[in-house]
């Protein structure tokens, strides 16, 4: 079997002592930032990216991926124990998880979340292994028109998933595309929108924008109202779920995994959509649906499985097409480019050890996470208590030095500060940063593919609809955008986000 041979290659790569350690560092850091509110995976990966330059590419990517899915585990711990979602994807977990904890069943809730996540992680790893290569083969046939339409679809998905007004999500996407074009135009070689600033000739670094908007902007926002975080933490008694718990959570884990895996692949979504969808579907399907919100184990197991499955399958478009589906995978694409690997469908055939090593490391990482999270829960609980005023100056220091080290230029520190201010202002105006960031990376790529597609079609714009795959992708994009306008859907979307904000 080819698959087994490939997985064996992956195991050899990822089970080396060095890579095991980087995987451990990744999931450990991931859990930590998942537990700490106010620090997300995007800002963390952006800060650590410069550090990974000295590592071999496989180790760097294994560690960065670990941070992302590790943060999903950590986020659920705080959701359950203190009703504070450390991560956007674990917002729905607070609804039933915290209620379970208040009833003295925190242990069972944590176990349901960890077991669900582990199961989902295993399935998602196998899915990447099974569907990665065929998808990459299909992508090898993609022309510029298909790539352009694929990116349009990804941006449409990120617009639908953005919080708040549809108009502002579209506005932020267009703004992101524009900002991405700053720098030297590849085709003509002239410098665009650099205003004569020499440092802008290479364009604005993605990491600079990510650190500014997600790191700095978030810090300023948190300083707005420094809430008291001395919360009563529920006692954890037995971690092992009862027979009844097992019986009730197994079907939910299966459904959550399926929903999360499918939705995770959609560009622009990642793990957030999956956990929301899994919770609302579970509410309809489950026998105990009417009691959701009072501490039902299904309401923990389903979204927790879904967000972990989604976090992992969101790597599929990045690893097979080279198209990032969210800010985190965009940073990883950046890491690959810095290491001299051109992301795209040829990575699997040209760098098999890299691809399979990452895939297998995800499963190993999940195994580490279940060990890290269940027995060591006491350590994470203490971490929740760290007051924010001792946390954010450190984040600022790492951002400042990290962004400097990218090009050894103070200019990038100034630029990061500027984007921090911009990020805060946009947040105040109800404009979300995530779609802008995705568009920022896709901007130059989209222009490039648009130009090539139009050149091949001799200036005929219908080419995007004449090619079947491209047309399908565009139709999906339009349907996704229209779905927001359907009253019932937009109501659910708002409700989901209102619950999320609460």
């Amino acid at each position, binding site marked *: 079997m080819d698959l087994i041979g490939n997985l064996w290659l992956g195991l050899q790569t990822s089970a080396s002592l060095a890579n095991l350690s980087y995987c451990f560092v990744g999931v450990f850091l991931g859990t930590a930032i998942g537990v700490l509110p106010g620090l997300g995976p995007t800002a963390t990966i952006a800060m650590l990216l410069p550090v990974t330059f*000295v590592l071999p590419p496989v180790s760097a990517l294994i560690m960065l991926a670990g941070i992302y899915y590790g943060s999903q585990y950590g986020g659920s711990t705080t959701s359950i124990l203190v009703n504070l979602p450390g991560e956007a994807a674990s917002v729905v977990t607070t609804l039933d998880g915290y209620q379970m904890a208040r009833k003295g069943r925190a242990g069972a809730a944590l176990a349901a979340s960890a077991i669900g996540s582990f199961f989902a992680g295993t399935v998602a790893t196998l899915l990447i292994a099974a569907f990665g290569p065929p998808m990459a083969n299909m992508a090898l046939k993609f022309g510029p028109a298909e790539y352009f339409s694929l990116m349009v679809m990804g941006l449409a998905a990120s617009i639908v998933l953005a919080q708040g007004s549809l108009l502002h999500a579209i*506005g932020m996407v267009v703004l992101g595309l524009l900002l991405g*074009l700053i720098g030297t135009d590849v085709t003509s070689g002239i410098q665009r929108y650099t205003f004569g600033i020499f440092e802008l000739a290479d364009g604005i670094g993605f990491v600079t924008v990510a650190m500014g908007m997600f790191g700095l902007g978030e810090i300023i926002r948190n*300083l707005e109202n420094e809430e008291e975080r001395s919360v009563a933490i529920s006692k954890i008694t037995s971690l092992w779920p009862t027979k009844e718990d097992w019986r009730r959570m197994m079907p939910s884990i299966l459904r959550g995994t399926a929903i999360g895996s499918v939705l995770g692949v959609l560009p622009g979504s990642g793990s957030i959509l999956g956990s929301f969808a899994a919770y609302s579907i579970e509410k309809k399907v489950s026998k105990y649906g009417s009691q959701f919100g009072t501490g039902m184990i299904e309401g923990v197991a389903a979204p927790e499985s879904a967000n972990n499955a989604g976090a992992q399958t969101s790597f599929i478009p990045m690893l097979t097409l080279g198209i990032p589906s969210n800010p985190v995978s965009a940073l990883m694409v950046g890491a690959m480019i810095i290491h001299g690997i051109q992301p795209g469908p040829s990575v699997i055939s040209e760098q098999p050890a890299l691809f399979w090593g990452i895939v297998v490391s995800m499963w190993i990482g999940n195994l580490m996470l279940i060990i890290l999270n269940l027995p060591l829960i006491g350590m994470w609980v203490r971490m929740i208590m760290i007051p924010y*005023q001792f946390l954010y100056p450190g984040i600022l220091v790492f951002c400042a030095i990290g962004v400097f080290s990218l090009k050894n230029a103070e200019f990038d520190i100034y630029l990061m500060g500027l984007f921090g201010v911009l990020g805060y202002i946009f947040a105040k105006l109800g404009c979300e940063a995530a779609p802008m960031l995705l568009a920022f990376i896709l901007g130059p790529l989209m*222009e490039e593919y648009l130009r090539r597609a139009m050149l091949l079609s001799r200036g005929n714009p219908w080419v995007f609809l004449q090619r079947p795959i491209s047309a399908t992708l565009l139709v999906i994009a339009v349907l996704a955008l229209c779905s927001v306008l359907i009253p019932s859907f937009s109501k659910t979307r708002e409700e989901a986000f209102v619950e999320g904000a609460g």
Partner: protein
Amino acid sequence: MMIRSTKDFWAGLVYISFGSTAILVGRDYQMGTAFRMGPAYFPTILGGLLVVIGAISVIRSFIAVGAPIGRFAIQGLLLVSAAIFLFAFLVRGLGVALALPILVIISAYASTRFRWGPTLIMAVGLTVFCVLVFLEGLGIPLPMLGPWLGG
């Protein structure tokens, strides 16, 4: 006429200013044709789109009622950004050993729970850590003590 949604109004103005800048500056570059797109083609389309979105947002702000912008964290905004800009300005001249504690202290001052004791400990700890990891370990070319101090 009254603005009913300040968020929509200001966001709209921000879009319009970015969009029109893109179009105006883009006039210096070649437009080309749809067949052979020049460097101005894509940004001009995007700029136009952004102006339209901005205009819709501004018009909507007079019609639909929206949530108010809310309190600005002026102190946090000013202190955090000032700390970062000052760090960028000082780091090569003064060196990490001084610029970094300044960054920590100014930014920590933005918190309502600021206290000198823990902040100073934090400043020293972070500086030692960064010098060891980033300067010694990763070899980032920043001086520990800069030329302004004769270092």
